């Protein structure tokens, strides 16, 4: 019985769950001025989870809990990416959270629960598991957005996020129920077999697929399911924005991959068409609307939308190369996005958010090093060499062209030209304008190291991307995606 359960398949999840519960308890006995104990315990838990995932790393995939979860290379790799993203987010936002009364035990515990939800989304092998993971993540995030209780904009953003998120979850669940109706199973492998074996395309299945894609598109934040993104990004405290904008994207990618390719590869022709529409709309609208933003967080929100559109460009080829390109894109985007929000928090002080574009004016004169890091971030988001973002765009465009979608590739490069315009504007503000204020930038030592390494990684991986490309390829070949 125990052997069938395969506890080990979910070991990193068990670690995070135990850590979250333990930290919740310990936090009760920690006085306010010693809150850093909870903080470092959280970091320690993440480090321990990374080590556990690395030691249980193996090439063949195993299923656990009677097929409810799957532990394969893809899961291990994406889990580690999520751990690193959350850990960096904590490093960057420490000073920011202290200044805003967010340096609290419940925030760390909720963050860990959100992370647990993401892990379940990454490892789920059953519609129900995946859905549970999604809800665990979303509910924790709704609460985190409103963590600053006396902050009306945060509460508004949280409400908006909750209402629209619940709607999307409902759609996803509705779609899954229709697929259950046609295939008779919630297990991804059984559904995949049933769809491959079907004789004619059933209307109900396609109908269900539409709802599933809509629900997933909401979590990925692509047009036309993007309305929540700018408001939530803008209204949430920046430390929570970076949490929403990075690791959950990785988890949403994994869930999309598990559902659309793992279970519904047989209906690839149907969802390909839907993704093409989402992809083109996101690339065009995301980039166009971003131009008009004066608020950096809103601009980055639209940039997320556009970037998820580029990610879909790789995904919609529906083959292993495209998926590995999309995976590379998601990770590259998460890494770049982390650094961009890290920079915003770096320049923030108590009572000053530093989220307007103008707050970056003359940064080069205040600190050449941080201006350089931000320069790398902006060029990476724009997809210009020699940064990581270039290879991300290169890979998705390559997979699209290989699959015969040359016209999509042309749209992608033309919209990325529009993108270059607004990213360059930030560079212009930093390097060509006079600073508006001369207050010295005070940064904690650990934040300096983490953010500098993060920024330089964008350059180093932009010149030597081979290892990361290889990892993405291995993750997908060992996980038996078509």
């Amino acid at each position: 019985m125990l052997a069938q359960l395969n506890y080990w398949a979910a070991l990193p999840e068990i670690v995070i769950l135990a850590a979250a519960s333990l930290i919740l308890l310990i936090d009760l006995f920690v006085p306010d001025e010693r809150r850093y104990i909870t903080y470092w315990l959280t970091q320690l838990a993440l480090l321990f989870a990374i080590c556990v995932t690395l030691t249980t790393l193996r090439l063949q995939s195993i299923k656990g809990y009677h097929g409810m979860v799957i532990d394969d290379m893809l899961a291990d790799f994406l889990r580690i990416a999520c751990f690193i993203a959350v850990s960096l987010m904590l490093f960057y936002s420490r000073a920011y959270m202290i200044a805003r009364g967010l340096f609290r035990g419940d925030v760390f515990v909720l963050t860990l629960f959100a992370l647990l939800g993401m892990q379940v989304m990454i490892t789920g092998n059953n519609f129900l598991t995946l859905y549970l993971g999604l809800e665990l993540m979303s509910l924790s995030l709704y609460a985190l957005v409103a963590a600053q209780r006396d902050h009306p904009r945060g509460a508004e953003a949280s409400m908006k996020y909750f209402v629209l998120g619940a709607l999307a979850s409902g759609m996803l669940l509705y779609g899954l129920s229709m697929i259950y109706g046609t295939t008779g199973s919630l297990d991804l492998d059984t559904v995949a077999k049933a769809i491959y074996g079907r004789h004619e395309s059933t209307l109900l299945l396609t109908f269900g697929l539409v709802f599933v894609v809509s629900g997933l598109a909401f979590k990925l934040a692509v047009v036309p399911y993007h309305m929540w993104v700018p408001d939530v990004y803008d209204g949430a405290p920046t430390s929570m924005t970076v949490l929403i904008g990075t690791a959950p994207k990785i988890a949403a990618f994994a869930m999309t991959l598990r559902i659309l390719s793992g279970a519904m590869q047989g209906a690839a022709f149907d969802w390909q068409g839907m993704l093409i529409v989402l992809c083109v709309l996101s690339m065009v609208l995301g980039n166009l609307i971003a131009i008009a933003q004066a608020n950096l967080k809103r601009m980055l929100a639209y940039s997320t939308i556009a970037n998820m559109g580029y990610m879909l460009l790789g995904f919609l080829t529906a083959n292993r190369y495209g998926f590995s390109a999309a995976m590379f894109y998601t990770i590259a985007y998460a890494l770049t996005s982390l650094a961009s929000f890290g920079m915003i928090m770096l320049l923030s002080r108590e009572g000053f958010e530093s989220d307007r574009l103008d707050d970056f004016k003359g940064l080069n004169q205040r600190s050449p090093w941080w201006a350089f890091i931000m320069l790398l971030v902006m060029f990476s988001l724009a997809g210009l060499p020699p940064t990581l973002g270039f290879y991300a765009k290169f890979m998705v465009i390559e997979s699209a062209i290989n699959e015969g979608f040359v016209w999509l590739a042309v749209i992608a490069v033309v919209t990325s030209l529009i993108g270059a315009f607004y990213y360059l504007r930030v560079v212009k503000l930093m390097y060509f304008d006079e600073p508006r204020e001369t207050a010295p930038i005070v940064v904690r030592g650990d934040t300096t190291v983490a953010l500098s390494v993060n920024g330089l990684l964008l350059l180093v991986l932009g010149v030597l991307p081979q290892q990361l490309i290889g990892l993405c390829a291995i993750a997908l070949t060992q996980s038996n995606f078509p």
Partner: protein
Amino acid sequence: MTPYLSLAIWVPIVAGVVVLGFSRDRDAGFARWVALIGAVAGFLVTIPLYLYFDTTTSAMQFVEYANWIPRFDIHYHLGVDGISVLFVLLNSFVTVLVVWAGWEVITMRVAQYMAAFLIMSGLMNAVFAALDGILFYLVFEAMLIPMYLIIGAWGGPNRVYAALKFFLYTIFGSLLMLVALIYLYSVSESFEILEWYKVPLEMSTQILLWVAFFLAFAVKVPMWPVHTWLPDAHVEAPTGGSVVLAAITLKIGAYGFVRFILPIVPDASRYLSGFVITLSLIAIVYIGFVAIVQADMKKLVAYSSISHMGFVTLGFFLFSQLGIEGGLAQMLSHGFVSAAMFLCIGVMYDRVHSRQIDAYGGVVNTMPKFAAFMMLFAMANAGLPGTSGFVGEFLVILASVKVNFWLGFAAAISLILGAAYTLWMYKRVIFGEVANENVAKMRDIGSREFWLLGVVALAVLTMGVWPKPFIDVMHASVANLLTVVSQSKL
């Protein structure tokens, strides 16, 4: 074997990063010296490329080959032939000039200024040496970043607009090239540029690829009508920026024509040659007229650059040995002459802080040594025999007369126009009575400026009097290029 090409690329880049270590204002002196040492070292390592160059073969020389990204079969593949080797030397030489020219002039954020030029220099050497499509694209785009910062941070009053326009224009062209490169990879399973010379392609595909490449390189050259970024960028850029833009960056566009367009899509190139020749003639004649009426000296030289680059594209699309060699000679000569013209304008600008022609007059009375140098460069710009400017134009005109007399005639008009705009400007600025007290206060050039201009003058004269060493280097490679181009790929 010493990896001379890697040295030519990495010595300036490493020097640039080191210079950034002296970012504090009180270290500006160190920054200058480190930059100069880096630039001179960068030039010295390129000299063996000329000394050990084998002129009898058209094969790639000094080849370096290493795996880079095996998943996409991308290699760190470097090599030069007779077409590209001289531009590596020219680029490294100009970098020394630029560092030297900015010595006392740049006082604000010296380290960043010098570092931007050194890094840019290494990247441009990589453009000329790259034999892998993605490596080429990578450095082709990456070099926009330092240039964008140079124009925007150290430029004139309208620098932000000019920098943005420069960036968006060039990136617009090159993004479609990325699609073309990936398409070629999907047909040939390789990113080797030399492999692409052998891939058979249908006519309709060739034309689409041609358009994608043409947009990238025509913007860079720049050809009429996508030239409008150049006058803005030149006018607003600091002297060093203008020199590098005119002397090297424009050459990269023209280099793309011979490295990519002609050999990879030869049938489309022949089919569309009339189109390119027409655009080139418009550039030569119409832009020549536009140059005459300019009131701003930098703008005038910018338009004269467009007109001169028209000769280059004209020469390339005549598909003859004379035409292509003429085009390449014109590129080299223009590298020296335009650099010299911008340096001269910079010398005057440093004293009077105006680029307007009517702010000057009678400069010869206060700056006789300078006037003599500028005379030489103005003559070279007008294509006077005995200067480097003559060689390329003469060869191209000769090649066009062989194709069609009236074509040659139209191209030859440029000699008259060139003389008109350059010498008329020279007359108004240099000759006559001392126009105002600003001019009266001008000091003649010091020893730094004397040697700066002297070195360029020597190069201009050598190439004008004895062009054989330059042309000989190109000969075998150009002949080979023509054989490749003459074979249909259909």
